[in-house]
């Protein structure tokens, strides 16, 4: 559906996107993850034809970007970050303007589509309100209706849930999942749980480069296999604790973390992939007079991968 090859964007000397290559299959929900300033928005802006890439190629349904920009734009629905809309217009006027620009000119069809979108995005009660009076969540929904106007094959959403309250986030997510059953959706976020809950595939970007690209399930499995354990102890100092764990001969790699309390030691232990070493650690520590404050297996797999990948490159 979408092929991105060696996409690069420079702002003067600053490289915002550095040779990104991606391919998105039809019907896939792709999450573009990355810390702030990683290049997510720039990538999406190039994909939607708003920015011209410094170099690289974009192909959408075998159509090349600069030559067929108008056709490609017609295939896509795009919701920019924080949904910038015309503040002085009424929601209805705005949406019918968008409909006309997107080629939905027949008044009857236009009205029918506006009704469908109003139901889908929950806009029925606010159609005749000026956009400037709407809350952020409502504006976001108008933006979403804008993006879905012509029922496009590809939907691109830039941080669709940023700045919304938990209820609104849940609503927007359910809309995305609903659309994602039939459409190709690409959305960017820096909220991991969101990507985990919504996406089929996750691409992590850091400093303009792709640092991970896999299905959500496989990324999670990969992280869980690392068998990461967090241990917090009261009693020993960091050095003694690390030495103690190393002496267990279980092939553990131990790294110290910043403790929550001053009188504690907190470490991260990477165990062998095929064995849960928590019982061994517990039994060994039982022999001492140290107190175990925490002994947990890492379950927030994506968060860990994200932190690891985005920190390694800083």
């Amino acid at each position, binding site marked *: 559906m979408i092929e991105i090859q060696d996409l690069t964007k420079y702002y003067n000397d600053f490289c915002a996107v550095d040779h990104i290559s991606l391919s998105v299959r039809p019907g896939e929900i792709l999450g573009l993850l990355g810390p702030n300033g990683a290049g997510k928005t720039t990538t999406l*802006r190039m994909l*939607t*034809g*708003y*920015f*011209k890439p410094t170099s690289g190629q974009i192909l959408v349904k075998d159509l090349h970007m600069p030559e067929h*920009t*108008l*056709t490609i*734009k*017609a295939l*896509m629905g*795009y919701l*920019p970050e*924080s*949904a*910038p*809309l*015309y*503040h*002085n*217009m009424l929601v209805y006027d705005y949406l019918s*303007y*968008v409909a*006309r*620009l*997107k*080629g939905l*000119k027949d008044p009857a069809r236009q009205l029918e589509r506006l009704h469908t979108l109003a139901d889908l995005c929950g806009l029925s009660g606010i159609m005749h309100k000026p956009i400037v009076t709407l809350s952020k969540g409502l504006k976001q929904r108008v*933006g979403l209706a*804008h993006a879905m106007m012509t029922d496009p094959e590809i939907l691109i959403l830039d941080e669709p849930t940023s700045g919304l309250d938990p209820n609104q986030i849940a609503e927007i997510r359910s809309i995305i999942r609903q659309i994602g059953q039939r459409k190709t959706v690409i959305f960017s976020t820096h909220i991991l749980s969101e990507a985990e809950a919504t996406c089929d595939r996750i691409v992590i970007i850091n400093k303009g480069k792709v640092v991970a690209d896999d299905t959500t399930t496989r990324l999670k499995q990969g992280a869980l296999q690392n068998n990461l354990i967090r241990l917090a102890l009261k009693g020993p100092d960091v050095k003694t604790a690390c030495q103690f764990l190393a002496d267990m001969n279980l092939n553990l790699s131990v790294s110290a973390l910043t403790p929550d309390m001053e009188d504690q030691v907190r470490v991260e232990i990477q165990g062998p992939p095929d064995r849960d070493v928590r019982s061994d650690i517990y039994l060994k520590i039982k022999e001492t007079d140290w107190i175990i404050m925490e002994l947990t297996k890492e379950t927030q797999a994506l968060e860990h991968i994200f932190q690891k990948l985005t920190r390694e490159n800083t």
Partner: protein
Amino acid sequence: MSQIKIIALKEFKDYFISPIAYIVIALFLIVVGWFFFSTFFIYSRADLRDFFALLPMVFSFFVPALTMRLFAEEKNVGSYETLLTMPVSFVHIALGKFFAATLFTCTMLVPTLSYPIFISLIGDLDWGPVAGGYIGAVFLAGAYCAIGLFASALTRNQIIAFIIGCALCFTLTIINRMLFFMPSEIVAVIEYFGANTHFANFSKGILDTRDILYFISLISIFLFSTHLVMQEKN
């Protein structure tokens, strides 16, 4: 073509949604009406020559005020991104906005049609120069709107867009009153650049292709420059 029409109609309606249209039209009529009629009865001449002589100067302040928001506001609010990612090209956007602004400036002139009607009642008015003057005013409005649009495309700050627009329009307006500062060899060339000279021909009732061509060139040059700026900024 239809994309241009949709954008133009939206932008034109936009003027009337906010108070801008009403304030600008009222202010325009007060300024023009005052300056024109304050001397009209002294000369007791039944023509609109003084009214048309005022227009280039008045337009060079009013038109940039109307066009300053066209791009600058969109860029500032961010809706420019929403607009550009819809199936429209730079040409559609630039032309749509240009036609909206020109149409609005012409709308601003509509109430002034009462002047010739009123004058024809009290004196023997020659309608030729009046018709010529209004045709010229449309060309002048178009040219200044293209300049204002270009100024607006340069920046996201409306005030800067207004100042740049004013500076350019004002220069074109007063350039032929500055001729005595210029070396005599280039006076003719500089004079040709001034909008005032060309507009004055229209208001005498002369429809000269040179004048029409001048305004069309001015419009084309600034619309093309707007297009270049839009491309360059992306």
